């Protein structure tokens, strides 16, 4: 494992026998490794698990967030290939998916390095590859900032999942199965559109609401999607999760910025400012939305309002770790977004209520 700053950690190759490069990030959740690597938001990234034992309970067909692995490679302290009855081995599966993986490296040292220096590019390479060569490969890897990775994970043609409830059209920048499941369970008829779709195409399906999905990469690089969303806001209710939240915010004229090393885990406390309740949330994002007055971290616990191109936005959710914006509602038009993952998968279920809130807003919209 080599980082762009020359940091090198040797381990045992336990995955597919290829090299891989990408942005090296870490996730602090203690369970849910299979869901994590299949989450499209990890596209283009090399995922380090801070929990040392990965693979303990094997893999199953259910525990996936998409049809294949999106992480480019996996870094672990101790990989386990346990094969429980009714399940497969984690490493067998990674190999079958063609994903390189390294075991036995001092992940804690690596995480402390990334925490202090920030997320950076890196790669995993066979031991016999000369370091200089490895370095070139890393340099060839574009930086996360300004990268449009949505194109890589969006469907080529619309997909519809029937339902007898409201007609929801999602702009699919890499939507997680858990989100689809939660919407379907609540009766939504869901159509997943390629993120190249125009506002017209979306509206032509006369949606009751537009849903902006999670996904990989830098929202700033998705100008075309932002444009599309801008056409929709005010015409139909628009909701976003994670990247979708960022796209919505940019569409109404708010800024996003790159976090030093992102939020990736299942234990971040988020405060719902409308109820004062604290939720333990699943998170997976490297960028965040700038708050009122250009503040990246907020001093207030109040549902403050600030102006957007579409009227007032109201702060609805706040991260109690670093006090960044975790969610907002648009006041003068129907729209809202959260930065974290209420659908969990993996992670705690504290925030599932947001899907119900979503349904209510639709009912009243």
């Amino acid at each position, binding site marked *: 494992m080599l980082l762009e700053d020359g*940091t*090198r*950690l*040797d*381990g045992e190759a336990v995955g597919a026998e290829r090299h891989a490069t990408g942005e090296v990030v870490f996730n*602090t*959740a*203690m*369970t*849910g490794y299979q*869901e994590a690597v299949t989450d499209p938001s990890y596209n283009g990234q090399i995922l380090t698990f*801070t*929990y*040392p*034992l990965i693979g*303990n*309970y094997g893999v*199953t067909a*259910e*525990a996936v967030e998409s049809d294949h692995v999106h992480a480019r490679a996996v870094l672990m*302290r*101790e990989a386990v290939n*346990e094969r*429980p009855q*009714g399940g497969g081995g984690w490493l067998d599966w990674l190999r079958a998916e063609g994903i390189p993986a390294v075991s*036995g*490296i*001092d*992940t*804690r*040292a*690596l*995480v*402390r*390095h990334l*925490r202090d220096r920030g997320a950076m590019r890196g790669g995993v390479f066979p031991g016999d590859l000369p370091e200089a060569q490895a370095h070139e490969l890393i340099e060839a890897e574009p930086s996360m900032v300004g990268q449009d990775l949505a194109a890589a994970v969006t469907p080529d043609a619309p997909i519809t999942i029937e339902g007898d409830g409201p007609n929801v059209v999602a702009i699919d920048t890499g939507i997680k199965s858990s989100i689809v499941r939660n919407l379907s369970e609540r009766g939504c008829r869901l159509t997943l559109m390629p993120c190249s779709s125009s506002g017209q195409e979306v509206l032509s399906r006369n949606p009751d609401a537009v849903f902006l999905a999670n996904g990989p990469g830098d929202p700033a690089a998705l100008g075309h999607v932002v444009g599309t969303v801008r056409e929709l806001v005010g015409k139909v209710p628009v909701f976003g999760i994670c990247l979708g939240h960022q796209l919505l915010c940019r569409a109404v004229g708010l800024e996003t910025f790159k*976090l*030093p090393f992102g939020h990736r*885990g*299942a*234990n*971040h*406390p988020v*405060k719902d400012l409308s109820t*004062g*309740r*604290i939720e*333990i949330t699943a998170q997976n994002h490297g960028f965040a939305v700038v708050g009122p007055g250009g503040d990246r*971290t907020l*001093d207030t616990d109040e549902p403050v309002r600030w102006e957007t191109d579409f009227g007032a936005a109201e702060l609805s959710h706040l991260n*109690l*770790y*670093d*006090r960044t914006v975790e969610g907002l509602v648009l006041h003068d038009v129907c729209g809202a977004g959260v930065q974290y993952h209420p659908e*969990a*998968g*993996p*992670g*705690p*279920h504290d925030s599932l209520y947001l899907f119900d809130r979503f349904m209510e807003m639709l009912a009243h919209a």
Partner: protein
Amino acid sequence: MPRRDDLEKILIVGSGPIVIGQAAEFDYSGVQACKVLLEEGYEIVLVNSNPATIMTDPEFATSTYIEPLTPDSVAAVIEKERPQALLGTLGGQTALNLAKALYEDGTLDRFGVELIGADYDAILRAEDREIFRQTMTDAGLRVPRSAIVTSMADADRGIQDLGLPLIVRPAFTLGGHGGGIARTRGEFHERVSEGLNASPIHQVLLEESVLGWGEFELEVMRDRNDNVVIVCSIENIDPMGVHTGDSVTVAPQQTLSDRQYQVLRDQAITVIRAVGVETGGSNVQFAVEPSSGEVVVIEMNPRVSRSSALASKATGFPIAKIAARLAVGYALEEIPNDITRVTPASFEPTIDYAVVKIPRFAFEKFPDAEGSLTTQMKSVGEAMAIGRTFKQAFMKAMRSRELDAVVEPPADTEQLLTRLELPYSDRYELLFEALRRGTGVEELHARTSINPWFLGQFEQLVAAERDGELAHRKQLGFSDEQAGVSREQRIAEGLRPDFKSVDTCAAEFEAQTPYYYSSYERPSISARGAEVRRGSKPSVVILGSGPNRIGQGIEFDYCCVHAAMTARELGRDAVMVNCNPETVSTDYDTSDRLYFEPLTVEDVLEVVELEQPEGMVVQFGGQTPLRIARSLEQAGVRLLGTPVDSIDLAEDRGRFGAMLKKLGIQHPPYAVAHSAQEAVEQAKQVGFPLLVRPSYVLGGRAMEICYSDDDLASYLERVIAGAGKSVREEMYPLLLDRFLENAVEIDVDALADGEQAYVAGNMPPVEEAGVHSGDSACVLPPLSIGSDMLEQIRAQTKALALELGVIGLLNVQFALVDNDRLYVIEANPRASRTVPFVSKAIGIPLAKVACRLILGQRLSDQQLPPEEETPGHVSVKEAVLPFQRFHGSDSLLGPEMKSTGEVMGIADDFPTAFAKSQAAAGVALPHEGSVFISVCDTDKPAATQLAARMHELGFRILATSGTAQAISHMGVPVQKLNKIGEGSPHVVDCILAGDVDLLINTPVGISARADGWEIRRATVEHGIPCITTMAGASAAAGAIAAARASRPQVRSLQELHGLRPEPQPSKPKRRAPKPAKA
């Protein structure tokens, strides 16, 4: 929500003596609570009967009461102190039951005391199994099916629809006492009748068995705003059927997928809400069927618990501290996480290592006790280890136990496997042996139901034993010895552990709290020890006492904590090394740096290497640090205080004897034997009765009194030859002492600085010598001893202290025969079990003073009061014994220590103090009723006088024929009872029938030491006070008289010793400060 300003004074109740199921963890939680609530500016009133606790140190409360934890005495404290609130969720089951009782008898109402933490209804919903089941069912959760029975008849009906095996649970007994697993009809009837007896309301619950399911615990916290977080998940490696306290457990859980885990998380949250614990921590236990994933709720404890202490140490999240703040109004988000300082406590810790807790058993001390593990807790202590992987943590935990009984697996593998089908304390040794012999994971899973994942991990460890590179073995957590290298070789190979910190957040944030564990990693980018925040101050390493066990318990942790405080006072960094998660010493607040490591030479040396300390203190941790002291010194560690050689001088009989001769001090005739046959010859020289034991033992292990050659022969047969061969070597040389009959034993604690000595207290026991000093009640000041004798004792103690070159503490045990002949039984140049008791009785913190001497101060600098300035009050220490837990064990006291804990009674006069100590020990003496007396001939005269006294006090006298005769001669009315041999209705029948309220039974000689067994057993089962010495008996009579005369007064330590609590630091910030980053 802000701090509650309507409260000013809060009453905190401790958990009383250390008993199986309630140990030091409640001192840890109590101390945390006291600290923060004082910081918050509240007045704290503390009640606890256990003097060996840090929480009962005067500086941890505004007023500290060492009183029995009974409704009466706590009510007396309430009446005197008038607190506005009672926080009852930090003192274990004891405090919870007390809170319940004080609510029910109207005391709380009468004095307007509010229950904070958990209110009465919540306590009831969690503690009353029936209401709990209903609450769970209403909340849509599954609990095991069950039936309540009050007689054998309905029990047989119950068995119809539940089937065997099933679980028998008596209603309202502590720690499941009297319950158990019934696999056969025979066991079923046995358990049910036991259960009915054990239950105060003659009620048992029959419960559907989920034996073999996975057992999981979640530690949950809730605040006033109904925010709930899960602090930690704990998985029991031993499946359902072995009490969590006896199980090897691992945190976080290892074998559940995210989906399965989230189900438990959701259910745990439902449970705490349904039970309605308003604020604080709770422990929820689940059983999970491995293949179907079906979940049942087993129980919830609406309070901090053993598991929450474990969870706190495992994650760095101080549950008790935060629970205390929540109880006085704060919300989780308003409390900073003091490990990161920049984030609030309203989060769920995530960890990047594995933690293994392993129980420490003491069956070797109760040979006739049944050794299988069931639903009743039997372990006496535990060790915890942290490693980067499960295997590392497990191997470290195994070596942290300091076993002194070695396991010998059956040679026949089929036998081995059959034995594995029932869990015993040696289960893991046997599992490893089975793997070594090639038994596969499937087979072992079939036999034990242990999750294959764990068995797979064990298999890998065993594989590495066979072949594996050194580096690999060290990464698996092998000790140098197990890895087959010397320390030098390993270092030569460049293999050293790194030290990582426990930070609640898997390194996502910078950790401020210096709490570390070692781990072998591959060559890494971080310099060795990069995470350790070592300032420039000189540091002093303090070795803790490891897992609690009988003979070495909380008293030693108490001393270690004092050593740490003192080192800090004197401008050093206190560095603690210990592996016991229950303790105050392993609270990261106690020292400047905490290393959670096994107390072995190898592990300690790695810490020393990194710390480069000024020196190390080994005399506070009991025998554990002494065992390794010499090797540490040889490896170049500078030991502070009493030189190592003095330890040897005191323990080596030859050298010690010579020293005593030189000083002209008497000791009982003795001999040292290196073989059985030599023992027999030597016995003639020394003369009977003989006290025989192996050398180098603490707590009088394997010690027996022999009255004849036959006794000796049988001892050599049973104990020595009986022991495993690996132990047998260590048993020699054998020590033979002339056993001094009807001698009084005097325990002395003294301080010395190498030139001067100070005798702090000498305590004659209530029982005669022959009962281990740790098991006998003792008194301060020594009322029964004449002043010249005291002078002589002081003189001899000082002579010993100076001759041994003691710097710090010295404990000497004397035996006094006929009030004029004084013998030294033993001298321990270290802190003793009685240090906390003496400190609290005389109001001088002995351990602190000792530590100052160790760090170079002189006795003359200490402004100590004149020696033995008799305090204006009497203190009695009483031992608490675990016989109830050990089915079939004899409750007779002897030279081998058996008590798990101690209590203290303080009053103006001896009888009242003694009465308090008895009440505190849980065997409150009766005020009326009938007393049964059966004594040996030598005791008959004393017995008749006793009978007369009891008769005056209005007691009915019962006695066996011989004793009865003697008594009636005195003209005291007495009813004769049959001996067991003489047929029913005999003594035991009467006891079972509840016709006996107090029992006095002194045995004669070795033969009689076996007699009366059934009598004593019956009293133990029924919790009737049973006194086995005449001295104890007359003390009891006095106590009964005193108790009837007047209601005991309560006085706080601060009053007794004219102390003021130390000024507390100002209140902390309300809300978590804004983060530095981003």
